[in-house]
């Protein structure tokens, strides 16, 4: 485990130097929140400020765990870095574990900064425990996207991974309602997406102080599906990595 943590530390220090990463995971959600955060409407029964805070924190965190990882994993597989690591005493799963752990650490600032803006810029008021539950729900959501990133990163080559990543991420963020609250037929459809389920868990906690079981089951199911896909992707490419 010591080796895996050493690799995780190196991954985190790499990301901290990466401007692109900071722009997409922190600067972009902050900018959008500053522009739209004080809008006077509502979403899913809570103020728009609260809804949009959850949406933008999720956008930043998921984009960090997903966009960044798919492209890096695919590139590092092609470059032979994964191969090089397999020649060290690191356990076989260390690379993937380190990528997921890194995502879990580096998405914390994205969530915290947008939440601070929500509290002090758009004046979202709620008890401490609700803040904590919302942050944790989004944080756990990053696991889903980190798992999907592993599956796609291992399966796709660097040329095709970029467009696929953009399409998949925009699909989940727009049709999962991270940008604006959905209604009608679109909402019926969105109920099946992990992004919607995580936002809904958070807004339900903020508005009613409770959570719909169906959304929790949804989140767990998506994680299970993506984790299985990731496992298959890693195993099936073992000889070509």
């Amino acid at each position: 485990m010591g080796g895996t943590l050493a690799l995780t530390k190196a991954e985190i220090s790499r990301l901290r130097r990466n401007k692109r990463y900071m722009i997409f995971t922190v600067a972009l959600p902050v900018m959008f929140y500053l522009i739209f955060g004080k809008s006077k409407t509502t979403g899913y029964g809570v103020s728009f400020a609260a809804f949009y805070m959850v949406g933008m924190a999720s956008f930043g965190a998921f984009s960090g765990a997903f966009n960044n990882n798919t492209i890096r994993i695919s590139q590092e597989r092609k470059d032979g870095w994964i191969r090089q690591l397999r020649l060290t005493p690191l356990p076989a799963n260390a690379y993937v574990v380190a990528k997921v752990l890194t995502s879990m650490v580096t998405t914390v600032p994205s969530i915290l900064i947008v939440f601070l803006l929500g509290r002090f810029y758009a004046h979202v008021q709620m008890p401490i425990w609700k803040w904590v539950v919302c942050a944790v729900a989004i944080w756990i959501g990053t696991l889903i996207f980190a798992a999907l990133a592993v599956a796609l990163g291992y399966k796709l080559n660097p040329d095709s991974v970029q467009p696929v990543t953009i399409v998949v991420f925009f699909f989940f963020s727009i049709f999962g309602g991270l940008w604006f609250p959905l209604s009608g037929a679109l909402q019926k459809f969105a109920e099946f997406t992990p992004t919607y389920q995580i936002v809904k868990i958070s807004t339900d906690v903020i508005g009613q102080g409770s959570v719909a079981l169906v959304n929790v089951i949804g989140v767990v199911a998506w994680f299970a599906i993506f984790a299985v896909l990731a496992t298959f992707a890693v195993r099936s490419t073992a000889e070509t990595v």
Partner: protein
Amino acid sequence: MGQYQAGYATALSSAASYGASRGGAPVVSFENVSKHYGNLHAVDGLTLDLRHGETVALLGPNGAGKSTSLDMLLALRKPTSGRIEMFGSDPYHAVKSGRVGAMLQSGGLMPEVTVRELVTLITKLHPKPEPVETTLTRAGIAQFADQRVDRLSGGQTQRVRFALAICGQSELIVLDEPTTAMDVETRRLFWSSMKEEVAEGRTLLFATHYLEEADQAADRILVINRGRLLADGTPAEIKQRAGAKRLSFKLDRVDEQFLLSLPGLVNLEVRHDLVQIQSSDSDATLYAVLNAGYRPREIEVGSLGLEQAFIAITAEDDATNGNAHAGETN
């Protein structure tokens, strides 16, 4: 196939005697190892042992199965059949115990970190590593240790990979085409630091295209072609394996008929008083000249170059086995 089989048997017996002279359990052993991709037999029944402290060159043309063999040894690929052992365990566990350091052509580096950060990271993963500064010096990368890995030249990158292979003070070092992309000077530095590693009792296995390197650096050469082991022995043995030594002398009254009847003669060239002979048994050839009463001057006996030997061995194999089953009816 007669000639080929005879040669193959010689190679195997010399390998056996070589191994026995060193004693101890083999560091690496391949037992009838094959790797097939559909109809392609990348590696085809490879059997060999590496002993502690040996420097072994794996020599073969492109596509001979060198990289596939090393990949299987390093647990990156699984053999279709056969068994590989390293330090008495399977390759995966041997690699994970840190007893092997390796540098592959296809191995990449982590971008966006400095050379020192990368070497430090890999060093930390080994159970009893070399101090980072020592590794940097040995690999000749200390002067650019603070540069970012993704901004190095090809030769510099190659040396960083080498650093990663030696930083763990592993007992076995495996290098796949280590000096590709290095200039002459860097290559010389590389081999001198490699010799330090060997002097400390490490076993070294390297694949190469450069015959000169195999000749100078290795004390044992494995020639493989089409996934099979064709010859195994010291550089001198491999040269001999191609069937001939060079023998030349000066003689005033040349009797060509007599010279053509000499034992072991493979090829004869006479220019004025200079006689040049290729012989499969240079001693017997020379004794026959002396016994006939001749007293030649300026006698020189030398080996064929490794390159000629290598070409002879692989060409013989291609000729015998290149066409489907041609060898068996021969």
